[in-house]
Protein backbone atom coordinates (compact mmCIF):
# COMPACT_ATOMS: atom_id res chain seq x y z
CA UNK A 1 0.00 0.00 0.00
CA UNK A 2 2.69 2.43 1.07
CA UNK A 3 4.90 1.43 -1.80
CA UNK A 4 2.17 1.99 -4.35
CA UNK A 5 1.59 5.46 -2.92
CA UNK A 6 5.24 6.26 -3.37
CA UNK A 7 5.15 4.88 -6.89
CA UNK A 8 2.16 7.06 -7.71
CA UNK A 9 3.86 10.15 -6.29
CA UNK A 10 6.93 9.45 -8.39
CA UNK A 11 4.83 9.04 -11.52
CA UNK A 12 3.24 12.44 -10.93
CA UNK A 13 6.65 13.96 -10.39
CA UNK A 14 8.01 12.51 -13.63
CA UNK A 15 4.96 13.63 -15.55
CA UNK A 16 5.45 17.17 -14.29
CA UNK A 17 9.13 17.16 -15.13
CA UNK A 18 8.35 15.96 -18.64
CA UNK A 19 5.78 18.59 -19.47
CA UNK A 20 7.84 21.48 -18.20
CA UNK A 21 11.31 21.98 -19.53
CA UNK A 22 13.03 24.02 -16.87
CA UNK A 23 14.77 27.14 -18.08
CA UNK A 24 13.09 27.17 -21.44
CA UNK A 25 10.36 29.46 -22.69
CA UNK A 26 7.56 28.18 -24.93
CA UNK A 27 7.58 28.92 -28.66
CA UNK A 28 4.44 30.66 -29.87
CA UNK A 29 2.63 30.87 -33.17
CA UNK A 30 1.43 28.28 -35.69
CA UNK A 31 3.88 25.51 -36.52
CA UNK A 32 4.28 23.23 -39.46
CA UNK A 33 6.42 20.42 -40.79
CA UNK A 34 8.22 21.10 -44.04
CA UNK A 35 7.51 18.48 -46.73
CA UNK A 36 9.99 15.65 -46.60
CA UNK A 37 11.46 16.88 -43.31
CA UNK A 38 10.97 15.79 -39.74
CA UNK A 39 11.85 19.06 -37.98
CA UNK A 40 9.08 21.36 -36.83
CA UNK A 41 9.00 24.66 -38.68
CA UNK A 42 8.14 27.47 -36.28
CA UNK A 43 6.61 30.79 -37.11
CA UNK A 44 9.29 33.44 -37.58
CA UNK A 45 9.27 37.20 -38.10
CA UNK A 46 9.79 37.82 -41.86
CA UNK A 47 12.39 40.31 -43.18
CA UNK A 48 11.42 43.95 -42.79
CA UNK A 49 12.79 47.41 -43.49
CA UNK A 50 11.57 50.54 -41.73
CA UNK A 51 12.95 54.04 -41.20
CA UNK A 52 14.30 54.62 -37.71
CA UNK A 53 14.36 57.80 -35.63
CA UNK A 54 17.40 59.01 -37.57
CA UNK A 55 15.62 58.42 -40.90
CA UNK A 56 18.00 55.55 -41.61
CA UNK A 57 16.55 52.29 -42.96
CA UNK A 58 16.54 49.63 -40.27
CA UNK A 59 16.30 46.01 -41.41
CA UNK A 60 16.07 42.68 -39.72
CA UNK A 61 19.86 42.38 -40.05
CA UNK A 62 20.19 44.69 -37.05
CA UNK A 63 18.46 42.02 -34.94
CA UNK A 64 20.49 39.08 -36.21
CA UNK A 65 21.38 36.83 -33.29
CA UNK A 66 19.75 39.21 -30.78
CA UNK A 67 16.94 38.90 -28.30
CA UNK A 68 14.52 41.78 -28.77
CA UNK A 69 11.27 43.21 -27.44
CA UNK A 70 8.85 44.66 -30.00
CA UNK A 71 5.75 46.79 -29.53
CA UNK A 72 3.33 49.06 -31.40
CA UNK A 73 2.43 52.59 -30.27
CA UNK A 74 2.04 56.17 -31.45
CA UNK A 75 3.47 59.34 -29.94
CA UNK A 76 0.22 61.26 -29.48
CA UNK A 77 -1.35 58.34 -27.63
CA UNK A 78 -2.65 59.28 -24.22
CA UNK A 79 -4.18 55.97 -23.19
CA UNK A 80 -1.95 52.93 -22.82
CA UNK A 81 1.26 54.00 -24.57
CA UNK A 82 2.68 56.20 -21.81
CA UNK A 83 2.39 53.44 -19.24
CA UNK A 84 3.67 50.82 -21.75
CA UNK A 85 6.75 52.87 -22.42
CA UNK A 86 7.18 53.73 -18.75
CA UNK A 87 7.37 49.97 -18.09
CA UNK A 88 9.46 49.27 -21.19
CA UNK A 89 11.87 51.98 -20.06
CA UNK A 90 12.53 50.01 -16.85
CA UNK A 91 13.49 47.02 -19.03
CA UNK A 92 15.67 49.24 -21.20
CA UNK A 93 17.37 50.65 -18.12
CA UNK A 94 17.89 47.12 -16.75
CA UNK A 95 19.51 45.84 -19.96
CA UNK A 96 21.20 49.07 -21.00
CA UNK A 97 24.60 48.37 -22.51
CA UNK A 98 23.87 44.68 -23.07
CA UNK A 99 24.60 44.16 -26.79
CA UNK A 100 22.42 41.04 -26.94
CA UNK A 101 19.16 42.74 -25.96
CA UNK A 102 17.41 45.25 -28.23
CA UNK A 103 14.10 47.11 -28.22
CA UNK A 104 11.95 47.95 -31.24
CA UNK A 105 8.92 50.24 -31.15
CA UNK A 106 6.81 50.65 -34.29
CA UNK A 107 4.54 53.65 -34.73
CA UNK A 108 1.08 52.92 -36.09
CA UNK A 109 0.49 56.60 -36.92
CA UNK A 110 1.94 56.89 -40.42
CA UNK A 111 0.77 60.47 -40.95
CA UNK A 112 1.98 62.21 -37.81
CA UNK A 113 4.86 60.15 -36.43
CA UNK A 114 7.56 60.91 -38.98
CA UNK A 115 11.11 59.91 -37.93
CA UNK A 116 11.88 63.43 -36.65
CA UNK A 117 8.85 63.22 -34.37
CA UNK A 118 9.97 59.77 -33.16
CA UNK A 119 13.44 61.14 -32.44
CA UNK A 120 12.01 63.90 -30.28
CA UNK A 121 9.74 61.44 -28.49
CA UNK A 122 12.65 59.09 -27.75
CA UNK A 123 14.74 61.93 -26.37
CA UNK A 124 11.91 63.11 -24.17
CA UNK A 125 11.38 59.59 -22.89
CA UNK A 126 15.05 59.56 -21.96
CA UNK A 127 16.21 57.07 -24.59
CA UNK A 128 19.39 58.13 -26.35
CA UNK A 129 20.95 54.80 -27.29
CA UNK A 130 20.66 52.81 -30.49
CA UNK A 131 19.64 49.86 -28.32
CA UNK A 132 16.01 51.05 -28.47
CA UNK A 133 14.90 51.82 -32.01
CA UNK A 134 11.73 53.70 -32.91
CA UNK A 135 10.61 52.96 -36.45
CA UNK A 136 8.23 54.37 -39.01
CA UNK A 137 6.87 52.54 -42.05
CA UNK A 138 3.99 52.62 -44.53
CA UNK A 139 0.72 51.80 -42.79
CA UNK A 140 0.11 48.59 -44.70
CA UNK A 141 3.56 47.20 -43.85
CA UNK A 142 3.40 48.07 -40.16
CA UNK A 143 -0.18 46.87 -39.69
CA UNK A 144 0.53 43.67 -41.57
CA UNK A 145 3.65 42.77 -39.57
CA UNK A 146 1.79 43.63 -36.34
CA UNK A 147 -1.18 41.41 -36.98
CA UNK A 148 0.26 38.58 -39.05
CA UNK A 149 3.68 38.25 -37.50
CA UNK A 150 3.87 39.77 -34.02
CA UNK A 151 0.20 38.81 -33.45
CA UNK A 152 -0.71 42.25 -32.04
CA UNK A 153 -4.03 43.80 -33.06
CA UNK A 154 -3.81 47.41 -34.28
CA UNK A 155 -6.51 49.47 -35.92
CA UNK A 156 -7.40 53.00 -36.89
CA UNK A 157 -10.63 54.00 -35.17
CA UNK A 158 -12.10 57.47 -35.39
CA UNK A 159 -14.30 56.83 -32.36
CA UNK A 160 -11.33 56.22 -30.05
CA UNK A 161 -10.02 59.27 -28.17
CA UNK A 162 -6.76 59.46 -30.10
CA UNK A 163 -7.95 57.86 -33.34
CA UNK A 164 -6.36 54.43 -32.90
CA UNK A 165 -6.98 51.29 -30.91
CA UNK A 166 -4.25 48.77 -30.32
CA UNK A 167 -3.09 46.17 -27.87
CA UNK A 168 -0.33 46.86 -25.41
CA UNK A 169 1.66 43.66 -25.89
CA UNK A 170 5.39 43.63 -25.51
CA UNK A 171 6.48 40.75 -27.73
CA UNK A 172 9.67 38.83 -26.95
CA UNK A 173 11.57 37.55 -30.00
CA UNK A 174 14.49 35.12 -29.84
CA UNK A 175 17.67 35.10 -31.99
CA UNK A 176 15.92 32.63 -34.32
CA UNK A 177 13.20 35.24 -34.96
CA UNK A 178 10.56 33.21 -33.10
CA UNK A 179 7.97 34.57 -30.67
CA UNK A 180 8.81 33.42 -27.14
CA UNK A 181 6.37 35.48 -25.12
CA UNK A 182 3.85 38.31 -25.11
CA UNK A 183 3.38 40.48 -22.04
CA UNK A 184 0.85 43.15 -21.18
CA UNK A 185 3.04 46.25 -21.16
CA UNK A 186 0.53 48.20 -19.10
CA UNK A 187 1.08 45.97 -16.05
CA UNK A 188 4.28 46.29 -13.99
CA UNK A 189 4.01 42.61 -12.86
CA UNK A 190 3.93 41.38 -16.46
CA UNK A 191 6.85 43.61 -17.34
CA UNK A 192 8.69 42.14 -14.36
CA UNK A 193 8.07 38.67 -15.74
CA UNK A 194 9.36 39.78 -19.14
CA UNK A 195 12.54 41.03 -17.48
CA UNK A 196 13.12 37.58 -15.99
CA UNK A 197 12.19 35.83 -19.24
CA UNK A 198 14.74 37.88 -21.18
CA UNK A 199 17.40 36.53 -18.80
CA UNK A 200 16.05 32.98 -19.27
CA UNK A 201 16.19 33.37 -23.02
CA UNK A 202 19.74 34.77 -22.94
CA UNK A 203 20.79 31.78 -20.82
CA UNK A 204 19.17 29.37 -23.30
CA UNK A 205 21.31 30.76 -26.13
CA UNK A 206 24.51 30.89 -24.06
CA UNK A 207 24.57 27.07 -23.85
Amino acid at each position, binding site marked *: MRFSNLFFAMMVLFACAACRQPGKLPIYGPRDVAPGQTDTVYKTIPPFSFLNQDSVPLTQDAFKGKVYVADFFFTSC*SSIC*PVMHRNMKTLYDAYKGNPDVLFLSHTIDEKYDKPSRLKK*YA*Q*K*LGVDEKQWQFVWGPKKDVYSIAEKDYLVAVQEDSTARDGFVHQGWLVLIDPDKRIRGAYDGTLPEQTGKLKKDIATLLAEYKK
Partner: protein
Amino acid sequence: MRLRNLTLCIITVATILGMFLSCQSQEELDMRNYLSNGRSLYEVKCRNCHGEQGEGLGELAPPLTDSLSLKKKKKQLSCIIKNGLEGEIQVHGKVYNEKMPAFTELTDMEVAQLIVYITNSFGNSQGHYPYNRVTEDLKNCPSSAQL
Protein backbone atom coordinates in the same frame (compact mmCIF):
# COMPACT_ATOMS: atom_id res chain seq x y z
CA MET B 1 -29.81 86.62 38.03
CA ARG B 2 -26.07 86.93 37.60
CA LEU B 3 -25.70 83.19 37.65
CA ARG B 4 -28.40 82.88 35.01
CA ASN B 5 -26.60 85.37 32.81
CA LEU B 6 -23.37 83.51 33.19
CA THR B 7 -25.02 80.22 32.34
CA LEU B 8 -26.64 81.76 29.27
CA CYS B 9 -23.32 83.20 28.24
CA ILE B 10 -21.56 79.87 28.60
CA ILE B 11 -24.28 78.09 26.64
CA THR B 12 -24.08 80.67 23.83
CA VAL B 13 -20.32 80.46 23.61
CA ALA B 14 -20.45 76.66 23.71
CA THR B 15 -23.05 76.59 20.94
CA ILE B 16 -21.05 78.91 18.69
CA LEU B 17 -17.87 77.00 19.41
CA GLY B 18 -19.70 73.74 18.75
CA MET B 19 -21.04 75.03 15.43
CA PHE B 20 -17.59 76.17 14.41
CA LEU B 21 -16.01 72.85 15.33
CA SER B 22 -18.72 70.80 13.60
CA CYS B 23 -18.33 72.98 10.50
CA GLN B 24 -14.63 72.26 10.44
CA SER B 25 -15.16 68.57 10.81
CA GLN B 26 -17.77 68.69 8.03
CA GLU B 27 -15.12 70.20 5.76
CA GLU B 28 -12.67 67.56 6.86
CA LEU B 29 -15.25 64.91 6.11
CA ASP B 30 -15.87 66.39 2.65
CA MET B 31 -12.18 66.52 1.97
CA ARG B 32 -11.76 62.89 2.93
CA ASN B 33 -14.52 61.95 0.47
CA TYR B 34 -12.98 64.10 -2.25
CA LEU B 35 -9.58 62.53 -1.61
CA SER B 36 -10.73 58.94 -1.93
CA ASN B 37 -12.80 59.60 -5.06
CA GLY B 38 -10.00 61.74 -6.46
CA ARG B 39 -7.56 58.88 -6.00
CA SER B 40 -9.69 56.47 -8.05
CA LEU B 41 -10.16 59.08 -10.76
CA TYR B 42 -6.43 59.79 -10.80
CA GLU B 43 -5.68 56.12 -11.35
CA VAL B 44 -7.98 56.00 -14.37
CA LYS B 45 -7.39 59.39 -15.97
CA CYS B 46 -3.98 60.68 -14.95
CA ARG B 47 -1.66 57.93 -13.72
CA ASN B 48 -0.69 56.66 -17.19
CA CYS B 49 1.20 59.84 -17.95
CA HIS B 50 1.81 61.52 -14.61
CA GLY B 51 2.78 58.33 -12.78
CA GLU B 52 1.86 56.48 -9.62
CA GLN B 53 3.69 58.99 -7.42
CA GLY B 54 3.05 62.03 -9.60
CA GLU B 55 6.61 61.72 -10.87
CA GLY B 56 5.73 62.45 -14.52
CA LEU B 57 7.24 60.68 -17.54
CA GLY B 58 10.59 61.91 -18.81
CA GLU B 59 10.05 65.16 -20.63
CA LEU B 60 6.75 63.92 -22.02
CA ALA B 61 4.60 64.54 -18.96
CA PRO B 62 5.49 66.95 -16.13
CA PRO B 63 5.56 65.79 -12.51
CA LEU B 64 2.83 66.96 -10.14
CA THR B 65 5.23 67.55 -7.30
CA ASP B 66 5.92 71.25 -7.90
CA SER B 67 3.82 72.66 -5.06
CA LEU B 68 4.64 76.27 -5.88
CA SER B 69 3.56 75.88 -9.51
CA LEU B 70 0.37 74.11 -8.47
CA LYS B 71 -0.44 76.82 -5.96
CA LYS B 72 0.17 79.59 -8.48
CA LYS B 73 -1.96 77.88 -11.10
CA LYS B 74 -4.65 76.64 -8.74
CA LYS B 75 -7.39 78.71 -10.38
CA GLN B 76 -6.35 77.38 -13.81
CA LEU B 77 -6.23 73.71 -12.83
CA SER B 78 -9.93 73.14 -13.53
CA CYS B 79 -9.59 74.53 -17.07
CA ILE B 80 -6.42 72.49 -17.70
CA ILE B 81 -8.06 69.24 -16.60
CA LYS B 82 -11.30 69.87 -18.44
CA ASN B 83 -9.98 71.42 -21.66
CA GLY B 84 -6.47 70.01 -21.91
CA LEU B 85 -3.27 71.96 -22.36
CA GLU B 86 -0.99 72.84 -25.25
CA GLY B 87 2.15 74.89 -25.48
CA GLU B 88 5.18 75.43 -23.34
CA ILE B 89 5.01 75.26 -19.56
CA GLN B 90 7.65 75.24 -16.84
CA VAL B 91 7.58 72.80 -13.97
CA HIS B 92 10.43 72.61 -11.44
CA GLY B 93 12.28 74.97 -13.78
CA LYS B 94 12.15 72.46 -16.63
CA VAL B 95 10.36 73.15 -19.91
CA TYR B 96 7.59 70.80 -21.07
CA ASN B 97 5.92 71.16 -24.43
CA GLU B 98 3.57 68.29 -25.12
CA LYS B 99 -0.16 68.12 -25.53
CA MET B 100 -2.33 67.13 -22.60
CA PRO B 101 -5.69 65.72 -23.69
CA ALA B 102 -8.97 67.29 -22.57
CA PHE B 103 -11.13 65.42 -20.09
CA THR B 104 -14.45 66.97 -21.03
CA GLU B 105 -16.35 63.99 -19.66
CA LEU B 106 -15.54 64.94 -16.05
CA THR B 107 -18.16 66.73 -13.95
CA ASP B 108 -17.26 69.78 -11.84
CA MET B 109 -17.39 67.55 -8.78
CA GLU B 110 -14.98 65.05 -10.33
CA VAL B 111 -12.59 67.85 -11.35
CA ALA B 112 -12.70 69.14 -7.77
CA GLN B 113 -12.00 65.67 -6.41
CA LEU B 114 -8.98 65.38 -8.70
CA ILE B 115 -7.69 68.80 -7.68
CA VAL B 116 -8.05 67.92 -3.99
CA TYR B 117 -6.27 64.60 -4.49
CA ILE B 118 -3.41 66.05 -6.55
CA THR B 119 -2.85 69.12 -4.37
CA ASN B 120 -2.80 66.97 -1.24
CA SER B 121 -0.60 64.12 -2.49
CA PHE B 122 2.93 63.75 -3.85
CA GLY B 123 4.29 66.07 -1.17
CA ASN B 124 1.60 68.73 -1.69
CA SER B 125 -0.72 69.75 1.12
CA GLN B 126 -3.00 72.57 0.07
CA GLY B 127 -6.29 71.65 1.74
CA HIS B 128 -9.81 71.42 0.47
CA TYR B 129 -11.21 72.77 -2.83
CA PRO B 130 -15.02 72.49 -3.02
CA TYR B 131 -16.71 71.87 -6.36
CA ASN B 132 -18.42 75.28 -6.52
CA ARG B 133 -14.99 76.87 -6.87
CA VAL B 134 -14.38 74.62 -9.87
CA THR B 135 -17.66 75.81 -11.38
CA GLU B 136 -16.48 79.38 -10.78
CA ASP B 137 -13.00 78.72 -12.26
CA LEU B 138 -14.47 77.11 -15.36
CA LYS B 139 -16.36 80.30 -16.22
CA ASN B 140 -13.05 82.06 -16.78
CA CYS B 141 -11.25 79.54 -18.95
CA PRO B 142 -9.08 80.97 -21.73
CA SER B 143 -10.71 80.46 -25.12
CA SER B 144 -7.86 78.31 -26.46
CA ALA B 145 -6.22 75.55 -24.51
CA GLN B 146 -3.08 77.67 -24.39
CA LEU B 147 -2.13 79.26 -21.10
